[in-house]
């Protein structure tokens, strides 16, 4: 069974979003985004994560990166409209280069990007842990 922590928001594309207590200088809420335990289990071992959109504003449902598993390639979709602030240095090939963290700790060290939310209303379109559990059951 895959883990689905309470308190996070979930998208139909199997991303999770966690609002942090940080804000940007212009007052936007900062959140972490990653892929769910269920999604990493479906993909299998990740071998590479690419995010080349840092600094860009990406609209909801648009692609912000790609994950490569041994078996397949999968795009990463923005759960909400946001500006990409940071790509997790633990995953980045020039830095930590440990894409397997997404497999071992998808909701912790395996987070993918830090974002600044540009449209808080879109959070209402995401699912709770319960709603996501229903979707994947």
């Amino acid at each position, binding site marked *: 069974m895959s883990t689905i922590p309470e308190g996070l928001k979930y998208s139909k594309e199997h991303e999770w979003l966690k609002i942090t207590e940080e804000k940007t200088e212009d007052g936007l809420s900062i959140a972490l985004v990653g892929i769910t335990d269920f999604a990493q*289990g*479906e993909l*299998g*071992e990740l*071998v*590479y994560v*690419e995010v080349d959109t840092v600094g860009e504003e990406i609209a909801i449902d648009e692609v912000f990166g*790609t994950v*490569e598993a*041994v*078996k*397949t*390639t999968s795009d990463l979709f923005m759960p909400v409209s946001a500006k990409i602030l940071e790509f997790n240095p633990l995953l980045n*090939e020039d830095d930590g280069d440990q894409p397997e963290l997404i497999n071992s700790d998808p909701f912790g060290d395996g987070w993918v990007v830090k974002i600044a939310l540009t449209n808080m209303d879109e959070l209402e379109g995401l699912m709770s842990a319960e709603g996501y559990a229903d979707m994947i059951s």
Partner: protein
Amino acid sequence: MKETFLKSRHEALGAKMVDFAGFNMPVYYSSIKEEHLAVRNHAGIFDVSHMGEFHLKGIGALDLIQKICSNDASKLAIGQAQYSCFPNGEGGIVDDLLVYRMPEEDGVPVYMLVVNAGNIEKDWNWVNQHNKRAVTIVDLSDNMSLLAIQGPKAKGILQRLTKTDLNDIPFYHFTKGDVGKSENVIISNTGYTGSGGFEIYCSNSQVDELWDEILEAGASDGLIPTGLGARDTLRLEMGYCLYGNDITDKTSPIEAGLSWITKTYKKTLIDRALYKVQKNKGVDRKLAGFKVHDRRVPRQGYEIKNIEGENIGVVTSGTLSPSLEIPIGMAYIDVAYLDEGTKILVDTGRKTLEAEVCKMPFYKN
């Protein structure tokens, strides 16, 4: 969805199950990479009971096989197996398969054809459609299970479970014998991994006990259960074709590098004339291996381009090679670009990856 008789074993081992060719099959238990390396360095056991088996019995069995199978089955001794494919009458391939020449029954020749799970129905229709001499054809796919025990330790592990001397079974030969508590199973020196080992055909009622016995006997040698994910990366490192990816009803065996199993001297062979021309005059594209100078992994369907950016081919299989730790793939490429080391580009749709043509197998033991 169909399932094998080991489904509960796979689930108890924590396997990730997926739909493969209409069967609920284990894609991995722990991790594809770990299972892959276990087969390369120690041993692994695969449940490949989804594969199809047809028995052909009759005076005309060899004639039927010689017509529909590309390789020359007249060369087979009893107890010998052969890789082959079914030409589809339009130059493409219906399926690839193994042909086993079984012991005669009541003085009548018997063969077993082992086909891909996803093609069982298509193959069944194809073989029966060409059966003009009353060969008795029986589909045993639902009655037989198949285990592949592969890797450098596989032989030693199996030897502890059988009185049959495995040294007496050369590559691509088989015999019937007892393994563990299972009597009269087919022990075949074949496989799809390039790391050696055996495949055991048994009845569905034998397979769970045999699976347990092999896992137990092999544990001290590092044998682990291995899924279809590792089976795919293992075969790809060897450059072995996978039906549906590298060979299809639109690819000829000559293009696929399977000239060695395409015996156009056989007068009755389907598509003989076409393959003769392809062998003599050459083909426009061929299946080739390539390695990528990037972290991105090539996938089926990505376009291959030359360094000028012109389209010269298409990827049929790709993965991150667990042994070599680089992305590798196979592609049909214009024959002008097949020299080893030729620089090519792989277009992912979003990025262009630098790559070069290389020899297969990618991995050498």
